[in-house]
Each structure stands twice: as structure tokens, then as C-alpha cells.
């Protein structure tokens, strides 16, 4: 039985329809769902409507109550002058030093030194960590992470995402993660929800969607005049303008392709889960 099942979902801000889902979406227990789409596609609205933060019309079937869903929003501000320790203690009505579970999470995210600071003294990454700790501590059956790493430098982003992945490796919680960083999702999610202009373009298992939209395997190379000329003979699928994506649906296709690429000294990336290319082709298919 699905943890949460959306039959229809419509959110409008005045005359602007931000989200209009007309096909059934089932979120199963333990799912790790990546929610992707361009800016303004309706990703945050989707998360907020399920959490009851925006008014919607439609039908969502679930046994979950509002209090069973946790959400990490893009903006996670607290009063700047407040001590971080006090924020955490006030939210959970606890004393950190006496709460082993909380201490474990704080240690897991290497957050102990930040407890002595005021919220305004935290860096962007530390602020995100604080809210992640607060969200994970709730241990809810369904958790939304909305662009957890936006605004962070590469190193902080990688560290933070790897910590979240590590955390969920041993947990069976259901997670929906909104992100523009597809590489983060590739390592974490088993399903994808692709939204464009408020409509669902694709929803399903990452591997199945990849197979359907891109083929078994793809080879991605840099898009330049020489590479373009050399690989003209091969079938292509959609890719961002700086890349060329070459699908291969059999071992012999792969052999032919790699032989040419190696012979010509072209650097390539082989993937059977490239979410960026998957996304481009999902959009392309609709348009």
C-alpha cells in the first residue's frame, strides 16, 4: 500500500496555476524520490502542498497526518541573535547533553562546535546542517528536502549530501528531495518526479525512465566541432548544449562507439543513470 497517493493536485496563486497534476503518483514506503524541473516548474509548490503549507484542490490519499511529514525548506532562518543550542533545545523541549539521540545526530554532522555560536554566526552550510539535524531528529515517515545545498560551495555541498546519504543508508524513511544538482540525486534516489510548467512530465523508477528515454547506456562527450563531426554517424539523444549524448542499446553498439572514441582520443563518460540527460530527454519528448 502506498504511503501517499496523489490522484489530482492543483495549486493556483491568483490566476497563475503553479501546479496541475492529473496523473496518479504513488509514493511507496522507503522510496527515495528526486524531484527535478526548471526554476518555477512547481517543485517547491508540490512539496509545500503535500505538507499543507499552501492551499490546493485535488485528492491526496494517505494515512499520514500533517505531523508525520517533515520538510526542509529552501529558507531556514531563525532569529540571528539566538544561541544555536537554545534554538535546538526549544524546538525539541530537551537538554542536548541529556538527549543521546540528538547528540548522535549532532556528532554525525560534526556540529558540536556550532552549538556555542549564535545563529547569525553560522555559515551557509552550517545553517543548512542545523535544519537537517532538526529535520532528521524528527524521524518522520515522510521527509521533504527542498534544495538543501543551494548556495553552498562545491566542497560543502558534496560533504553535506554524502552525510545525508550515509544517514539514510541505514534508515527506511521515505524521502523526497528537490534539487538542481543531478549528480547528488544519482547516488541517492530510486525514483524521479520530473515537473515542468506545473505538470508532471515523468514519474517512475530511475532505471526504467532512463531505459525508456535514453536507452540502456549512454556515452557523453564534449560538444565541439571535431567531436560533432566524428560522431555524426551515431544516433544521438537530447543533451545540454555543451554536451553530445550517444546512446548504445547493445554490446556491439558500445564496442563500435568506444572504438571510435578511443581511436580519435575523445574523452567520454559512460552512464546508465545520467539524470541530467534523462531530464533533457523527458522535456524534449513532451515538447
Amino acid at each position, binding site marked *: 500500500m502506498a504511503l501517499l497517493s496523489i490522484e489530482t493536485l492543483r495549486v493556483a496563486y491568483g490566476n497563475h496555476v503553479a501546479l496541475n497534476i492529473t496523473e496518479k503518483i504513488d509514493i511507496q514506503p522507503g522510496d527515495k524520490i528526486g524531484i527535478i524541473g526548471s*526554476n518555477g516548474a512547481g517543485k517547491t509548490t508540490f512539496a509545500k502542498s503535500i505538507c499543507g503549507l499552501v492551499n490546493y484542490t485535488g485528492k491526496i490519499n494517505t494515512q499520514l497526518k500533517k505531523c508525520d511529514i517533515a520538510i526542509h525548506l529552501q*529558507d531556514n532562518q*531563525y532569529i540571528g541573535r539566538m544561541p544555536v543550542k537554545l534554538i535546538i533545545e526549544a524546538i*525539541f523541549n530537551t537538554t542536548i547533553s541529556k538527549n543521546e539521540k540528538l547528540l548522535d545526530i549532532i556528532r554525525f554532522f560534526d556540529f558540536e562546535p556550532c552549538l556555542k555560536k549564535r545563529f547569525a554566526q553560522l555559515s551557509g552550510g552550517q545553517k543548512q546542517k542545523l535544519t537537517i539535524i532538526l529535520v532528521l531528529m524528527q524521524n518522520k515517515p515522510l521527509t521533504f528536502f527542498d534544495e538543501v545545498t543551494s548556495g553552498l560551495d562545491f566542497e560543502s555541498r558534496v560533504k553535506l549530501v554524502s552525510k545525508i546519504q550515509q544517514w539514510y543508508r541505514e534508515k527506511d524513511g521515505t524521502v523526497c528531495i528537490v534539487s538542481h544538482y543531478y549528480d547528488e540525486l544519482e547516488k541517492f534516489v530510486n525514483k524521479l518526479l520530473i515537473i515542468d510548467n506545473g505538470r508532471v512530465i515523468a514519474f517512475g523508477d530511475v532505471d526504467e525512465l532512463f531505459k525508456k528515454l535514453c536507452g540502456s547506456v549512454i556515452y557523453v562527450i564534449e560538444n565541439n566541432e571535431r567531436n560533432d563531426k566524428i560522431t555524426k554517424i551515431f544516433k544521438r539523444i537530447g543533451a545540454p548544449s555543451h554536451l553530445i549524448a550517444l546512446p548504445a542499446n547493445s554490446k556491439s553498439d558500445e564496442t563500435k562507439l568506444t572504438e571510435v572514441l578511443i581511436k580519435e582520443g575523445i574523452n567520454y563518460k559512460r552512464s546508465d543513470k545520467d539524470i541530467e540527460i534523462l531530464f533533457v530527454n523527458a522535456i524534449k519528448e513532451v515538447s
Partner: protein
Amino acid sequence: MSWKLFKYEIVNLTSSVITIIFGFIFPIGMVLLFSFAFGGEVTDTSALHTQLFIQFALTIPLAILLIGHAVNYASELESGAALRFKLFGHSERSLLVSKMLANLFFLTISLAIYTIVVSLALQVNAPSVGAVFTFLGFYYIFSAIVFVLGHAIATIFGQVGKVMGTTMTLYFLLMILGGMMGVQPDNLPDGVRHISMGLPLYWITMYLNDFWVGGSFNFVPLIITTLGLAVLSIGLFGLALWLRKKGKIKQGAKPAYYD
């Protein structure tokens, strides 16, 4: 409401510059300043000091609640901090109760310090028992009213700048109408005086001084004007809740939920 949340609100209040300056320092400073400024013009110094004590004690709830609480709460709404607490399972009611209790605690401490400092520095008459009850009763009822007023203003505007501007204007307006800016309400121009008489501050400023030293006091106008102000505040709070329910108030760091 939890003890930790109460502690959080106390720190929130005590670390607010506005609350400290206007709630603690300003009333004491103004009483001392006015007592020196007008001290030479009157024969009964203790009557002047008592009147100043009564008047400026009432600026404490105005500063702490009308400005301090409203601005603090607006800041929480604007930054999304209030929403985050709700998302972590705190009901709006429990958050509001913790804020009310923290403010009540702070108001009491502030009044106690104000009373001690002003009593030591000036010749304030010893009050009659009835005056103490009337004064304290009014102090806390007036505080409750301005808390509701400040909360309503913060909910409607939801932005620090607008809330600061509105509450500061109201603060000084009420101080002028209540005779706290050096001009007694009865010396105000006719039209303004009539407005002043519609406020409970007028009746406290003009007549509590006599009652303080054993005279009589007509409670009817005070009760009527207090009820009037309460109705106005509750009405504004109701309007704020209605506007929010209808989605006509945008709050949070990002005004709309686009994306």
C-alpha cells in the same frame, strides 16, 4: 508550552535592543529628565514625581509589547522562523502562550526595576491600597490590550520595517495623547483633547494621582475607554486572522511559493 520555549522567548526578549532601550532605559530616563525639567515650576514636587511615575510606567508595556513584541514577531514572520517552529510541531497557540508569558515576566521585572529606581531617585508619594490595585490592574490589562494590538499589526504587515514604522508612530501618538510628552492632555487643542479623552491613558494621567494619595476616582470612564481600546485591538487581531486565512497576507523570507 514548554520550559525551554519560555527560556527561548526570554532570551529573545532580553537580547532585543529595542526592548531594552525602550522598555528599561527610556521610561526611567524620561521620568528623571521631566522631573528635572518641570521640577522648578511646581510647588508640590512629590505630586509631580508621582504623576510622572504613573505616566511613564505605562510607557513600559507600550515599548515592550507594542514596539518590542510586534517588531520581534514581524522579524520572525519575515525570516520564516515562526513557520519553522510550526513545522517542528509547535502549535501557534503554544508559541503565542510562551511569548505572552515571557513578556509578562519581562513586564513585571521592568516595572519592578523602574519602581525601585524612580522611588529612590525621586519623591514619589506612597500609594493607597486602592491605587496600587487600580494601577497594577490597569498596567496588566493595558499590557494585554497592547500585546494584542502589536501582534495584530505584526501579523498584518509581516515585515520589520513597516511594523517598526507603524508601532513607533502609534507609540509616540499615544504618548502625546496620554500627556507623556510634556503637555498635559487638558492643555492639548480641543479636537485632540477629545481624542485623548477616548483613551484610558487620559483618565489615568489626569485623575489617578489624587486617588494615589487617598482621594476619589471615577472608574467608569476608565473602564469604558479601556473596553473601547480592547475592542479595537481584538477587532484588528480578528481582521489580521481573517486576512491571513484568506491568503491576503504574504509572509516569510520569500513572499510567494513559486518554483
